[in-house]
C-alpha cells in the first residue's frame, strides 16, 4: 500500500439503463513513478475506469484511493494532484497556446488572472518558456491553437497538464491519430518528462508497442481484469518464446518425430513447425537433438501484441 499512488478495489460501474456492468469488480494498484498501461478492446471499460479515477464519473461500488486519499471524500484535492490528456483534444481553438495554458494555470490556482500575457508574473513566463522548449513549441506557443497540427496540439496539452506539477498523469489514448514520427516524438517528450519529474503515468492505448515500455500492465475485457503484471510476465503467461523450423517436404515426417521426442509443445502450420519454449537454453537443447537438415530456422520472442490478442481471444471463447 505504501508505495501505491492508485489503489482500486472491486470497482464496479453500471450505467443507467444498461443491463451489464461497464466495469465489473476490477482491482489493481499502481506504484509511484510507474508507467502503467491499461489495455483492452473498445468498450472494455477503459474510459469508464479513467473517468471514475479522474472524478468525472461516479462509481457504483468499490473503493478507490488516489494518492492515499479516498476518491469520494477528496475530489477537489485529488483533481489538483492529477493531470489528464483526454482522448479528444480539449484545447480552445479560439485561444492561443499560451492563453490555453494561462486558463489552466488560473483554474488550478497557480497564478492570478490577467487578460494579457505581459501582465502575468515572471515566474509564469519562465515556466511556460521552459515547458514549451521541452516539447519544441517555443515559436508556436503564441499562435491560435486552431493552426496547430495534431502532434502540436498533443504537445501543448502535455505542457498544460504539467503546469500544476501533477503526481499522476492520465493519458487516454494520447497518440491516436498521430503519424508515426509524431508518435515517436511525443513518446520521447513523455519519457523526458517522466525522467525529469518522476510523475506516475496511467496510459490507455491501442498501440501495443507503446505499452511494451510500461513497467506494469493491466488488461481489461468486458469490464473484468484478465491480466495484471509486467510486460514480460504477461507475455510469458501466454507462451514466452518460440522456435520456427522448416525442412524439405519429404523430411517433414522425420522432423516431426524428432520434435516429438524432445517433448516440447508444438504446432504445425503451412509446413512450418512452431515450438513453444521457455528460454534460450531450452532452445539450444532442442536444436542439439534435431538431426534432420533444416531449410529454415528462427527464434522469436512473443510480442505484447501477440500476448494481448491471445488473452482477449481466449476470453472471447470462454
Amino acid at each position, binding site marked *: 500500500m505504501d508505495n501505491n499512488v492508485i489503489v482500486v478495489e472491486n470497482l464496479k460501474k453500471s450505467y443507467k439503463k444498461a443491463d451489464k456492468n461497464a466495469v465489473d469488480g476490477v482491482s489493481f494498484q499502481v506504484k509511484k513513478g510507474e508507467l502503467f498501461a491499461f489495455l483492452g478492446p473498445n468498450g472494455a471499460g477503459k474510459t469508464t475506469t479513467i473517468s471514475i479515477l479522474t472524478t*468525472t*464519473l461516479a462509481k457504483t461500488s468499490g473503493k478507490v484511493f488516489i494518492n492515499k486519499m479516498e476518491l469520494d471524500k477528496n475530489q477537489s484535492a485529488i*483533481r489538483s494532484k492529477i493531470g489528464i490528456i*483526454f482522448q*479528444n483534444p480539449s484545447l480552445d481553438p479560439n485561444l492561443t497556446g499560451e492563453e490555453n495554458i494561462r486558463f489552466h494555470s488560473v*483554474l488550478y490556482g497557480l497564478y492570478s488572472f490577467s487578460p494579457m500575457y505581459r501582465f502575468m508574473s515572471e515566474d509564469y513566463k519562465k515556466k511556460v518558456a521552459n515547458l514549451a522548449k521541452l516539447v519544441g513549441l517555443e515559436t508556436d506557443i503564441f499562435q491560435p491553437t486552431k493552426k496547430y497540427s495534431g502532434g502540436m496540439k498533443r504537445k501543448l496539452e502535455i505542457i498544460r497538464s504539467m503546469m500544476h506539477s501533477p503526481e499522476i498523469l492520465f493519458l487516454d489514448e494520447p497518440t491516436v491519430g498521430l503519424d508515426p514520427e509524431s508518435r515517436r516524438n511525443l513518446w520521447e517528450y513523455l519519457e523526458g518528462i517522466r525522467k525529469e519529474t518522476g510523475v506516475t503515468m496511467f496510459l490507455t492505448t491501442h498501440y501495443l508497442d507503446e505499452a511494451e515500455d510500461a513497467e506494469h500492465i493491466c488488461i481489461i475485457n468486458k469490464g473484468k481484469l484478465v491480466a495484471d503484471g509486467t510486460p514480460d510476465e504477461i507475455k510469458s503467461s501466454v507462451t514466452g518464446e518460440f522456435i520456427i523450423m522448416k525442412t524439405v517436404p519429404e523430411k517433414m515426417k522425420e522432423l516431426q518425430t524428432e520434435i516429438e521426442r524432445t517433448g516440447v509443445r508444438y504446432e504445425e502450420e503451412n509446413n512450418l513447425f512452431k515450438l513453444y519454449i521457455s528460454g534460450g537454453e531450452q532452445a539450444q537443447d532442442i536444436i542439439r537433438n534435431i538431426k534432420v537438415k533444416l531449410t529454415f530456422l528462427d527464434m522469436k520472442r512473443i510480442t505484447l501484441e501477440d500476448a494481448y490478442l491471445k488473452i482477449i481471444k481466449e476470453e472471447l471463447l470462454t
Partner: protein
Amino acid sequence: MKQHLLDEIAIIAYRDFLKFLKDKSRIIATFIFPVVFIGVLGNSLQSNLGKGVGFNLILFTFTGVLAQTLFQSSSSGIISLIEDRENDFSQEIFVSPISRYTIILGKVVGESLVALAQAIGIITFGLIIRLPISFGQLISIIPALILACITGAAFGVILLSNLSSQRSANQIFPFIFFPQIFLSGVFVPIRSLPWYLAILARISPLTYVVDFVRGIFYHSDPSLTQVTLFPLWLDLLVISGMLFIFIIAGTVMFTRNERNR
C-alpha cells in the same frame, strides 16, 4: 482563497466573452432579431393600435425586446455548457479542482457580459430611430439589464440541469422560449388574457424580468401603470427568489447528473 475564487470566475467569464467576440455570425444574428422585432413589429403595432392604448408602442416593444434579448442570450449561453462538455474545452474545466458552483458562476458572469454587449447594440439602434429615451432612463436601466442577464443565466442553469444532450436542448428550446416571448408581454400588453394564459404568463420568469425593466425605464413616466403589471418590489422579490432557487438547485442537479450517468 477569496482571490482564487475571483480569478477562477474571471477567467471562465473572460473566455466566454472572448469566444463571443471571435464569433462574427453570432454577433450579427444577435442584432438582426431585435432590429426586426422593434422596427417591424413595433412600428406596425404603433400605427394600428398606438392611438387606442394611449402610449408609444414602439418604445414599449423596445423595452420588452431589450429585456427579452438579454434574458434569452444568457440562457442559451449557459446551455452551451452541454455542447462544450461533450466535445471540447469544458472537459478541462470539469477536471480542474474548482467547485461546480464556481464554474456555473463564471459562466453566468461571462454570458451576462456577452448579453450586455448586445444591449449596447440594441440601445444604439433605439437612439438611431429616435425613440424618446432620456439619459436618466439609460443610466437607471443598467442595473435592471444586468439583473435580466443574470436571471436569464439562472434560468439557463435550471434548464441545463434537466437536459442530457445538445439535441434535446435544441428540441426543447423553441417550446420554452417562444410561448414565453408572447406570454410575458414583450410586444403587446398582457393585461387582458384569458385565465389559462394568464396563469402561464404568471409562471413565466421572463414576465417578471420584462416587467421589472419596464418598471425602471418608465419609473417617472405617467404611463407607468399602463405599461407594467406589478409593482417594482414584487418583480424584484419574484426575480430574487427565482435566482436563488435556479442557481442552487440547478447546480446541485447538474453536478449530480453529470457524475451519475
